[in-house]
């Protein structure tokens, strides 16, 4: 897409899973990307290789989004390398899969510090640069757990609910800068692995024997999420801000 030729994006947690799908979609459209990773640099290297094989431009920056100094250094590195920053995709998060009783204050504070603190820190560091962009965009990866309780991970749901309101508040504050801020509430997505382990044997609706649910039981592909992010970052989506777009094949409607 011509409108993306000079644009630059930072994708946190962009080395694997949903983040990698977003990186590939953006780079495939001509956006130059910083692939942020922390715990899995090998997977980020693989994503970078795939991007370059497809003719895209990207680089990797390893940083822990819970550390403000590392976040600041990462944004500085993007601007130093490419001279600008137009798009921030907040995606890096962890999901411990704990019940309410299984958290303690320290583990919940750590989750809060990464899952919502990381989004806030990256936005704070990126916004001065997004203000200089003709199409400044922030996309926050949330989850269907931002609205729907599932006894899946109470702490994770709390942080995703917080991202829902972070998105709305930030969208409101940034309307005067013409920066749009949106969230994606994502359902089950095909990724390599999760940071936590569900304590029960998860079954899709199809597996529990209702063939009428065949359509919703298929996992969302990271590339599909990437295409939605690409749209939200386009000029055509300039009127959409403060929204949460659900991508789950309709599963929460069941």
């Amino acid at each position, binding site marked *: 897409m011509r409108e993306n030729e000079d644009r630059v994006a930072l994708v946190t947690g962009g080395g694997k899973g949903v983040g990698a799908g977003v990186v590939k979609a953006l780079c495939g459209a001509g956006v130059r990307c910083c692939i942020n990773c922390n715990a899995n640099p090998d997977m980020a290297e693989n994503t970078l290789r795939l991007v370059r094989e497809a003719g895209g431009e990207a680089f990797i920056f390893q940083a822990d989004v819970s550390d403000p100094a590392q976040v600041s250094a990462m944004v500085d590195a993007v601007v130093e390398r490419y001279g600008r920053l137009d798009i921030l995709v907040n995606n890096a998060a962890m999901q411990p899969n704990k019940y*309410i*009783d299984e958290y303690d204050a320290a583990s919940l*504070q750590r989750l809060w510090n990464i899952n919502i603190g990381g989004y*806030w820190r990256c936005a704070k560091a990126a916004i001065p640069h997004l203000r200089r962009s003709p199409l400044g965009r922030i996309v926050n990866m949330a989850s269907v*757990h931002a609205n729907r309780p599932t006894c899946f991970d109470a702490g994770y*749901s709390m942080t995703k609910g917080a991202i829902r309101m972070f998105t709305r*508040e930030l*969208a*409101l504050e940034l309307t005067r800068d013409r920066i749009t801020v949106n969230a994606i509430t994502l359902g089950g997505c095909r990724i390599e692995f999760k940071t936590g382990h569900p304590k029960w044997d998860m079954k899709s609706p199809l597996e529990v024997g209702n063939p009428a649910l065949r359509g919703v039981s298929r996992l969302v592909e990271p590339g599909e999420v990437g295409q939605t992010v690409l749209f939200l970052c386009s000029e055509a989506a300039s009127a959409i801000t403060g929204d949460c777009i659900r991508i789950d094949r309709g599963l929460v409607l069941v």
Partner: protein
Amino acid sequence: MEKQTIVITDLRTQEARDALACFAAQGWEAVAVPEDVCLWDEAALSAFARPFAETLTAVIHPAPPLLVCGFEQADEALFERAGNEGAIAAWCVTKVFGGIFREKGSGSLIYLNSIHAEKPVGRGFLFSMGCAAAQMLAREANQDYGPDGVRTYFVQRGISQDDPDGRSDVSPLYFGVDLRYPSRRMPERGSLNALLAFLTTPAAAPLMGSDLRADGGMTMYYGHRRKVEGREYYERK
């Protein structure tokens, strides 16, 4: 209404103080968590709660006072404070008192929160994040503790009595605040007391797990088409 034993976790908002006074006036045992008990310190809160375990019937956990802070003004210290006061405290209260109710097989957890869990106002994004986190926690607690007889309710009050004249540079929510209500006046002090009292009782069981918006209709009201004599709709007070 049957006599209840109620703990209110935080008296820093007027709504919480009004509820405590109302419950005490009708002869209920209503106790506030002392200010020196940190609400996100599980051990300290458990030590406070233990003597009430046998008789306790309901806990009301109010949201903290609105932390006025735009995005530009937020720093690491404010972020940590808002997270502890809004989200981590709600979790700790849920775990401690929800655990007591789970053992007893009954009890109400009432989150006296704010429309900020849904409505952005552009002057308290850290506060709003905490409200939304507490909202999701209430829903998760309904899933997790509900089967053991624990009833959870999430009440979204409107603009706090503590904050009637707040200002935002980016939202008209607070401009001509009385005109934001269909009735053209803010709800009076104590107007939530009857709702809170009802939610403490088993009669409210059909509402468990629900979000109850108790904001005088303001969030769903966009101003009357008729002009109010002498007032513009968005007139600053």
